[in-house]
């Protein structure tokens, strides 16, 4: 099966899955005994007509099943509904998606740039101090809650006064020139990227190490050594390339799980990303927004997995796409 056909097949398979997810999410949110307009009703300055108009606008005065299909047909037309904060949910999501994407891409980049060599070094020097050192680091990373890590780094930032605490831009952002703006954003990204990289590092470094150790036991590695190849060629040319496959699957998964992991970090660091937007939506009972965020998260997860499978095929021709 060629790659485009395979992608098409997977996308078609994803449609019923997304349908199930949307029904589940919608049912879940409609079970909520909460009134989206409670804060409007509580305000005596707002007339009953205005509230009814708002109900009409948000489609709240119809049965839940009808509401679902209105939501679905709007979705198919690219309309995600309106937020209770006012404004289109789509615009809100797009405003924040860029920031989250920036954070995710940088995090993945740094995670892999560090995890790959660290895993290789640990595997090659198995049982020695460098392996144990990384072992301790990854054990801490696996057990550290993101919000605690973010708080600890904030304390460091407060202490050194070298890093901004929270946000993505400084107040004078728009008065700077382009280079100044880039430096400003990079400066603000240090803490969030460090938090998420440290947390993400652990799993991948361990996986690299374990895979490489498995491969180093293989017969073709022994053959390569026996014919007198230098050790670094054995490792980088023969072993590592074969150890990389299971990692690509992880790569796709990581992309989506970053969305979840980043939410709390964004909250602590006041980072204007999707996770914080969703949290705010949940806290303000903004159902259209939460629904859209749930769907977007699911789409990202499915896309991440698809990306990983396609990458796997590109890297390893032995794998057949069935």
């Amino acid at each position, binding site marked *: 099966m060629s790659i485009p056909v395979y992608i098409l097949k997977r996308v078609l398979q994803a449609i019923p*899955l997304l349908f199930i997810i949307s029904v*589940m999410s919608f049912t879940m949110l409609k079970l909520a005994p*909460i009134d989206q307009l409670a804060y409007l009703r509580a305000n005596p300055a707002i007339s009953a007509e205005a509230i009814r108009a708002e109900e009409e606008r948000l489609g709240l005065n119809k049965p839940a099943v009808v509401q679902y299909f209105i939501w679905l047909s709007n979705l198919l037309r690219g309309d995600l509904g309106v937020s209770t904060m006012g404004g289109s949910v789509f615009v809100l999501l797009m405003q924040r998606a860029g920031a989250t994407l920036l954070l995710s891409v940088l995090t993945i980049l740094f995670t892999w740039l560090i995890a790959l060599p660290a895993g290789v070094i640990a595997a090659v020097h198995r049982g020695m101090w460098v392996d144990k050192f990384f072992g301790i680091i990854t054990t801490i990373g696996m057990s550290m809650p993101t919000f605690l890590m973010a708080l600890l780094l904030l304390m460091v930032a407060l202490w050194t006064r070298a890093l901004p605490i929270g946000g993505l831009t400084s107040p004078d952002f728009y008065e700077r020139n382009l280079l100044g703006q880039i430096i400003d954003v990079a400066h603000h990204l240090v803490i969030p990227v460090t938090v998420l990289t440290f947390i993400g590092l652990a799993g991948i470094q361990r996986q690299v190490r374990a895979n490489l150790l498995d491969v180093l036991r293989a017969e073709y590695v022994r053959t390569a050594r026996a014919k007198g190849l230098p050790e670094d060629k054995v490792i980088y040319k023969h072993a590592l390339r074969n150890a990389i496959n299971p990692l690509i699957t992880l790569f796709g998964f990581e992309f*989506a799980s970053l969305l979840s992991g980043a*939410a709390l970090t964004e909250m602590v660091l006041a980072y204007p990303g999707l996770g914080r937007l969703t949290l705010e939506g949940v806290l303000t009972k903004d159902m259209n927004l939460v629904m859209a965020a749930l769907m977007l*998260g699911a789409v990202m997860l499915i896309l991440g997995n698809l990306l990983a499978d396609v990458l796997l095929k590109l890297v390893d021709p032995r794998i057949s796409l069935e």
Partner: protein
Amino acid sequence: MIQEAPGFTIPTARPRARKTPWQRLWRDPLARLGLVVLALFYLAAGLADPIAPYSMYFNDPDVANAPPTQVHWHDAQARPTWPFIYPIERRFDPMTFRQTYHEKTDRAYPIKLFVKGEDYRIFGILPGNIHLFGVDSPARLFLLGSDINGRDNFSRLFFGAQKSLTIGFLGLFIAFPIGIVYGGVSGFLGGIVDNIMMRVAEAVMSIPSFYLLIGLAAILPPGMSSSERFALITVILSLIGWAGLARVIRGMVLSIREEEFVVAARAAGLPEFINIVKHVIPQTASFVIVAATLQVPSFILSESGLSFIGLGIQQPDASWGNMLKAALDNVNDLLNQPWLIAPGILIFITILCFNTVGDVLRDVLDPKSQGLA
């Protein structure tokens, strides 16, 4: 909890007496340390009432946001003495708008052991009023400072542990039966039913877990009693945890039911359902035990994350997550109040211990390493 592991038996012939998995787990120094720390934590949570100097709801508004009480080990002449404290009073600086606390050194209050204090009931049954240590009123012994309502952070850590530490296990008791039964049934029935059941499980897994978590937490109506809320948070955590397990169990059922001993039982006329329950499901035990050990910390993490953002356990009840929220609320002044991080450190230590034990347990129960150790 983990102590049940010895019940697990290895279905292979044994040439010589081998150590039980429990003994091998205990022999590992890191796992032993983890188990001891966890045992201490659970003990402290269970005996929170007699150990903690104050109850969860005790508050003294006059000493809100106080720093940790200074314990004096030397008297005025710098001679070592029985530890004592001074009561504190609040001063307000109208220029900087900062409140500070100062000791009133006119009267010392020695720290007393086994003092009479607030009444309590251990586990809601055993009545008592003796606290391990404390000081006489009106002095307050706030070892980790007080929160915004003047409640003792140190005591509340113990009561928070009751919620944070039990929720992981309670979630397990709901999620794992669901996962095992769902996966077992799906693998047993096969065909179209299996297909549909697995699509549903995949759908649950395809929603990023934290979004699903906060979505579910958001639908909890306000104004529930704290125990209702606790129960529902547990249910929510389990609703997220079962799907991954169900998929693995289903895969294992599909492969184990083709094993020779299962085929033999089938050939001998054992009905397929009984065969699955008696022969296939028990084979998944070692995987389930390890998965359970590693699932508990993730439940604990989820609960503290939820409480941290205000969707989990609510004030005035304590949980490590909602206590850590004080650190977030005072983030700009965190350097001056580093003790606010304490609940987070406890969450970290707990998860670290569970992960360490789980890792070692996986090696111990791994069939591939059975012959090696």
